[in-house]
């Protein structure tokens, strides 16, 4: 039977690759655009050459249908090195298409903003979407930048090495005086070859690689990875392990949100909250270390469960320290909302409209700050989130204030959630006793997780030996960087640090 649309499946489900519908490009394109028109969202869109020995490129799409908690998946085979771009009709695909073009040397015809993403040579030697010579290694940052011409227009270029202890990226502002007409963000400096290093896995390094996809989101990415492995191995994780994973994921959120609220305060020169939050962030990191020895949650989550348990005594200490940290945080953050000078700087700055957020497919707090109700914990609950719920936190104004305030709402809910889990920690083992078995050969699976920056999506395709033939990682930062670029429009260039911090996106998560 030939299917003309995308297949319905769920997260945590592994399906044989043969069941993935293979559509004609026209059908594929029509299916995606029609589903997006109905409110489905793009989760992943990527190429793969593992299905055929001839090196044909299969284009895979994963869409989410949050109304029903379903995924829609399908593929098409590209017939040449060119295909008609979907970006004009579905802007959320803009970076996915550029990524695809860069990785496989195919050209999305009609793409309105066609530039390299990470500046690496094509995976298919001899095929380059920009027609560059095979011997010519792409040089990072060398691309056409958008320019505004006119009297008194000037350009400000910043980075890759820019002020602060921060990852590298290049930012170009087209300004009229202080006013920013346009900001272009060009990344790729952090590219380490993550996705390609995962092919052939799982191996000894796979878990550790997942921990550093984005070092401040170790739990988020490792959990997504473990869910991929568990789906492909048909493994059921003990409930206690799911609870500990949930605690760790929320702690990661707490630490980062707290740090960002402090940094936002610092960027408007409000030092009390900046210094308190800088410290309290450490309290949350240290709670993670209480759990697993590492402030960044390294070595805690593993396929089949968790490596470390919490005994009754530890639960007590944990609760006590969480309460103390939260009390301090409440006092520190209240100052923010009660200081008019802070509010004057936060409100109305770096506004992103809900329409733009929806079109671009923003995720996480950045989307929720535009009033969009999207949260994987609610829409596609996995693990402990199937049993315990975190209410969604939104705010409608789309400005720096909204992104800050949504963080604070989420902090409160994460604390309540952790406390609830600590009191109701299920009994039982923290790992599958017999270990996780081999992965199903020639299967396909998708996992989704709500990291502190938003939706993390991992997709795996296995080969006939049950090894990863293709592993796709979509970090929330990959979705949100364009949101920052839009936030700067018609704002003052001096507000860039503030806007940047309100998103606080990962460079390495984007660059992979």
């Amino acid at each position, binding site marked *: 039977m030939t299917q003309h649309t995308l297949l319905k499946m769920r997260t945590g489900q592994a399906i044989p690759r043969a069941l993935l519908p293979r559509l004609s490009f026209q059908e594929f394109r029509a299916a995606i655009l029609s589903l997006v028109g109905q409110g489905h969202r793009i989760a992943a869109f990527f190429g793969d050459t593992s299905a055929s020995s001839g090196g044909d490129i299969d284009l895979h799409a994963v869409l989410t249908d949050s109304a029903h908690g379903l995924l829609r998946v399908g593929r098409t085979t590209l017939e040449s090195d060119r295909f008609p771009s979907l970006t004009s009709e579905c802007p959320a695909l803009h970076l996915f298409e550029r990524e695809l073009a860069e990785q496989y040397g195919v050209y999305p015809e009609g793409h309105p903003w066609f530039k390299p993403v990470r500046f690496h040579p094509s995976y298919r030697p001899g095929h380059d979407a920009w027609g560059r010579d095979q011997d010519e290694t792409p040089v990072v940052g060398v691309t056409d930048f958008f320019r505004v011409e006119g009297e008194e227009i000037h350009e400000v270029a910043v980075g890759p090495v820019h002020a602060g202890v*921060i990852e590298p990226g290049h930012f170009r502002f087209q300004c009229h005086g202080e006013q920013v007409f346009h900001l272009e963000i060009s990344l790729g400096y952090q590219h380490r070859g993550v996705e390609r290093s995962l092919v052939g896995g799982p191996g000894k390094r796979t878990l550790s690689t997942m921990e550093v996809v*984005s*070092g401040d989101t170790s739990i988020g990415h490792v959990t997504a990875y473990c869910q991929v492995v568990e789906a492909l191995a048909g493994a059921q994780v003990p409930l206690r392990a799911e609870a500990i994973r949930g605690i760790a994921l929320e702690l990661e959120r707490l630490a980062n949100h707290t740090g960002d609220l402090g940094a936002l305060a610092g960027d408007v020169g409000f030092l009390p909250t900046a210094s*308190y939050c800088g410290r309290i962030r450490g309290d949350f990191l240290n709670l993670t270390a209480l759990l697993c*020895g590492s402030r960044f949650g390294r070595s805690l989550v593993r396929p089949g469960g968790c490596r470390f348990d919490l005994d009754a005594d530890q639960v007590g200490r944990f609760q006590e320290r969480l309460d103390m940290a939260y009390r301090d945080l409440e006092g520190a953050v*209240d100052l923010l909302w009660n200081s008019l000078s802070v509010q004057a700087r936060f409100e109305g700055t770096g506004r992103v409209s809900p329409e733009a957020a929806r079109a671009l497919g923003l995720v996480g707090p950045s989307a929720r700050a535009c009033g969009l109700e999207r949260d994987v914990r609610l829409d596609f609950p996995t693990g402990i989130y199937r049993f315990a719920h975190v209410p969604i936190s939104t705010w409608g104004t789309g400005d720096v204030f909204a992104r800050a305030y949504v963080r604070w709402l989420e902090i409160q809910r994460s604390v309540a959630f952790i406390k609830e889990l600590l009191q109701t920690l299920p009994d039982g083992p923290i790992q599958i006793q017999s270990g996780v078995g081999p992965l199903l050969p020639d299967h396909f699976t998708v996992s989704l997780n709500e990291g502190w920056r938003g939706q993390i999506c991992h997709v795996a395709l296995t080969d006939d030996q049950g090894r990863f033939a293709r592993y796709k990682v979509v970090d929330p930062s990959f979705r949100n960087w364009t949101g920052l670029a839009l936030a700067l429009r018609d704002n003052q260039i001096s507000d860039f640090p503030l806007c940047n911090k309100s998103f606080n996106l990962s460079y390495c998560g984007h660059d992979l």
Partner: protein
Amino acid sequence: MISILLERFRQGRRTIAYPSGSAPALPDRFRGLPVLDSSRCPEGCSACINACPTDAMARDAEGLRLDLGRCLFCAECTESCPSNAIEFTKEFRMAVRSREDLVVRSGKDLERARPLEAKMLRLFGRSLRLRVVSAGGDGSAEADLNVLGTVVFDLGRFGVQVVASPRHADALVVAGPVSENMKYALLQTYAALPAPKLVIAVGVDAISGGVFRENPEIHNGVGDLLPVDLFIPGSPPHPLSILDGLLRLLDRLEEQRGEPAS
């Protein structure tokens, strides 16, 4: 205004007493300096060597050797070991001056970082300015470097400060395995530092490439590109490990002067 003052009062003073007082307690599960005991190894066992994701563990004529410069502190080795021959202690002091000193052996103490030579110490001992560059870093070492600036560690009290311009810096602090795409910017930044200058490698990525070692997109750390003066192992290093390394370099630790490095 009054609420700000009251809150200030309530939050109290939180700067740690270290190094004049004791260091804050580290969690029980903290994985610091590993200690090896080759005598416990069963005949012919190579479980830890096989389990190590980064080939940090090896065995030679003298027994087990663990290269801290490659170690992810992931505990795969301790878990695979049938005889508890490897133990991660709560010792956070791990910074060294030369790459070879990062090799831990059974029954051998770590050769911790010695202070800078007299001339450099005169220049930097009371004031050291750092320019941090992340070159393919995952953001965690960067985050824990930032932590040193918080009230808890208050790096400024030692005369150490992070600066924006490499022209104002005395030392280049490198995080990350040095991605190919950051190599040029890193070298340019180094060139922009006025001499004499130092290079400090923070974390396993910067020392050896970490889990990305041998990936074609990265350079296996900064060691082959620049002369490194201080190596701080860890994945990422605990802020205390970084602080300890910096203070050792600047000869600011009482214990260092009391008992010269063994």
